[in-house]
């Protein structure tokens, strides 16, 4: 056999093999009716009308790839033909985090509050939507959370959880407020206080103010005399937000140490860069009246009538 004949024979065998292999490939996947899904998954389907995702089913206007079971799980044809199996359908329990995020954002990127999800610390640390949300076993009627919101957040942020158990704290465990009153777990725009670096995931009040002012609006001002430390670096200059062993969530148990740590006249700091004013000679720390700074400096968050916050 000549080289040409052998070559032609090899090519023919290869093409035939390829044809046979192609003929043996699975047929292309296809969409099926939702009725096919509920045959085997009746529990998931029977209460699905309570699920927020039912809205697109109810509309009757969406194509199968955008609604119902297959809107998220992909075409179910192979899954039905093979009588189930995680390998024949998009099973979220088997997907890596980045693919879960991409799958959910196909629809859920259409909201401003989720605009920063891809650069959020949660996503950067490998979390997926299903780390917090459970579509079919949600324990909250809103947002389909896998646990009540506080328990969910505290499940990972255990250091914050114990702060809410301290004697002085924001009343999160008591139900007076929730984590999302201040935080956006899907990511936020850069802080508008401090150096626009930290903290992360803290939402802003009134378009661009620190989240604390959402409730503590009387501290917002504007004041003729702002307490510059708070205005420049934020409320956490003096307070710790979650919980503390100190009253009023202050960083120190007594107020005069808190004040004196900044008001020490040390160069380089403050408005003029020459130090934050130390106390004047009239103050005698041996006298208890001067140990209660806010007994005289009553408007410590800002004043309209006194540069020393005395009225």
């Amino acid at each position, binding site marked *: 056999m000549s080289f040409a004949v052998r070559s032609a024979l090899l090519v023919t065998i290869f093409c035939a093999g390829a044809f046979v292999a192609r003929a043996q490939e699975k047929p292309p996947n296809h969409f099926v009716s939702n009725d096919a899904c509920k045959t085997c998954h009746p529990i998931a389907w029977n209460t699905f009308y309570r699920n927020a995702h039912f809205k697109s089913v109810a509309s009757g206007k969406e194509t199968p790839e955008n609604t119902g079971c297959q809107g998220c799980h992909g075409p179910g044809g192979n899954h039905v033909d093979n009588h189930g199996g995680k390998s024949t359908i998009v099973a979220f329990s088997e997907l890596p985090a980045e693919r879960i995020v991409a799958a959910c954002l196909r629809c859920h990127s259409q909201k401003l509050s989720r605009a920063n999800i891809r*650069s959020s610390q949660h996503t950067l640390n490998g979390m997926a939507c299903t780390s917090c949300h459970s579509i079919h076993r949600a324990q909250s009627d809103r947002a389909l959370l896998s646990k009540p919101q506080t328990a969910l957040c505290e499940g990972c942020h255990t250091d914050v959880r114990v702060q809410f158990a301290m004697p002085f704290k924001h009343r999160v465990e008591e139900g007076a407020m929730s984590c999302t009153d201040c935080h956006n777990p899907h990511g936020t725009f850069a802080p508008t206080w401090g150096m626009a670096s930290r903290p992360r995931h803290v939402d802003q009040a009134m378009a661009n103010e620190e989240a604390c002012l959402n409730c503590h609006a009387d501290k917002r001002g504007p004041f003729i005399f702002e307490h510059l430390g708070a205005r420049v670096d934020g409320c956490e200059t003096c307070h710790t937000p979650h919980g503390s062993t100190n009253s009023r969530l202050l960083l120190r148990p007594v107020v005069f140490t808190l004040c004196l740590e900044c008001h020490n006249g040390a160069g380089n700091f403050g408005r003029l860069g020459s130090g934050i004013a130390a106390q004047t000679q009239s103050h005698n720390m041996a006298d208890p009246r001067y140990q209660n700074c806010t007994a005289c400096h009553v408007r410590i968050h800002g004043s309209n009538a006194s540069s020393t916050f005395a009225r």
Partner: protein
Amino acid sequence: MTMRITTRITILLFLIAGAAAAQVPVAPSPDPAGERTGENVSNYNIVDSFETGYRYSAVGGNDSQYRSSVNYGNGIRLLGSSLLVTSKNGHGLLFDQITLSTQGLGNDPYESVVLRVEKNRIYRYDMSWRQNDYFNPGLVTGGGDGQHLLDTQNRMQDHNLTLFPQSKLKFFLGFSNSSQTGPSYSSIQQFDPNGNIFPLFSNVRRVWREYRLGNEFQVFGIRVNWMHGWEDFKDDTGATLATAGVPGAIPIAQPPGVSLNSFQANDPTHGTNPFWRAAIFADRKFFHMNGRFTYSGGQHAFVVDESAQGVASSLSRIQNVVTLGDAERPVATGNLNLNFTPTSKLTIANSTSVYNVRTLGNSFFSEFDSATQTTSVLFYNYLGIRTVANDTNLNYQVSPLWGFMAGYHYSDRLITSQQQFTFAGATSGNLAEQSNQLQSGQTGVRFTPWKPLSVLLSAEVGTNSHPFTPTADGNFHDLNARIQYRAKTFQISASAGANYNANSASLTSYGSQSRTYSVSGHWTPHGSFTLDAGFNRAHTYTIGGIAYFLNQQFLQDQSSIYLSNINSIYAGVRYEIRKRIDLYAGYTRVQDLGDGRASADAGIGSAPPLFQGVQTFPIAFQSPMARVSVKINNRLRRNAGYQYYGYRSDFASLLGYRANTGYTSLSVSF
């Protein structure tokens, strides 16, 4: 067999005695009476449950401190309720879903109602209402009780209506109303800067209202969202002398012959804060972007009318102060965030933000003092802050086994300020300008060696060229590690974090270090048993240079030290007996060990006892609780619970309290 039962009982008793879940109050009960099957009415399914009962408390020790940190009282409550009405085909006449939940209605210190009503594609209405009782006994300092007492009620309500929530053209309407009302106790210093301090009584009256209007639409695949809001603020709190002629509790060494016979102050402040927010965002396969611009223009107009009459230095004194003026704070921000995802494994994110705020205004201060004659001062103040920041992050999932992220942050801040005083025709003031830059790098790596197991390690190091305050971030670094094992019935996680910050200046230096370690676990071997426990240790040590006067002598070579070692433990165990009786026991304890000293007067360093005595503040706060819930039938459940709160301050024993609280209730659900 006997041994096994004994072992089981011992373990159970140990768990019940030693532990329970976090600081969640014992009521309302978390257990529904039966399955959430609901009742079908016409085209709707209705799921409803509510719990009503009696809550009691008996407090010993410092009642004010209890009211400040716990505050549960006696009486009948609607402890909690939830209602879910859903149309079964998504085509209800007026609505498709109503979600309502309440807590503490009746007389609990924390009451809330959250409501959502929506009709698919047409509208969504969200409402929240909250009422919190706020009590603060005043700061406790080295010299005795502070005088900023508050016994107020805060009410907040938000209403948001979204029209066509599932369409590309949406409209937003919103209204918020908040108020703070109630008595408070403050103080005023008269008649000169070294004068005495007198107690004042105030009736707090503050109201905020905010109206919002917005819209969202899509152009060329880019969503545009804008909102305009108006916020009005009113503070009509005035002050009167609490007790004529009697100085407050603070001045121990009061000047002789000083008294205040009458005092009256009215200082209404009214303001408005209109704001605009416009944003664009788009999400494509390989590219995602969003941008935002905000502007708010806060304004306040104020008047202070103050009159005082008394005696100082054996002379009759009359002092009238009138202040009026206005303040403005326009704030503008801009953000641009870009995300690239060239592959599903790689994300590159860059965000740029600009923040610009100016605070300005003037205040005319006029004082008539029978001793110092008439003075008039015009204060003029300006504060400008401009911050530009850029942040770049890269996130790469190398393989299912591991991935990493890295980031760099740079920000530049310019602070411009001026304080100007015009006094008796002469003007003085100083203009200051300073800038500082922050640079930080961030990196992290995550491992998933086994599907249920994940390990996260991250670090950040940064430096600020010119911190504004001695306690701000100067040269800092953070280290964090977390390991988590998460299976269906068992979850355990441990984390460790360390934060160091050093901030030095010519006369003083500030340094802080904090370390946190925690471990927590959650075990649910089957539906009738749950164990939840955790331990956390938080160590904080700060040292900062201080300068102060002591008996006319200026001291500036000392340090203020603060040392805190907080151990926290929580644990909870829930056991269900034959799907009928639900038992829960829990324990929480927070203890700040301080630096281990037995009394306040044995401090660190050379500072006088005043400062050594406040270097640490050991306390203990604990709260054991137990609850039993008996299912009577599928609709009814009987509950009873007990919770103890105990607070102890080692160096201020008068602050301690012991509170026995509890409740009994009936849960109804269908």
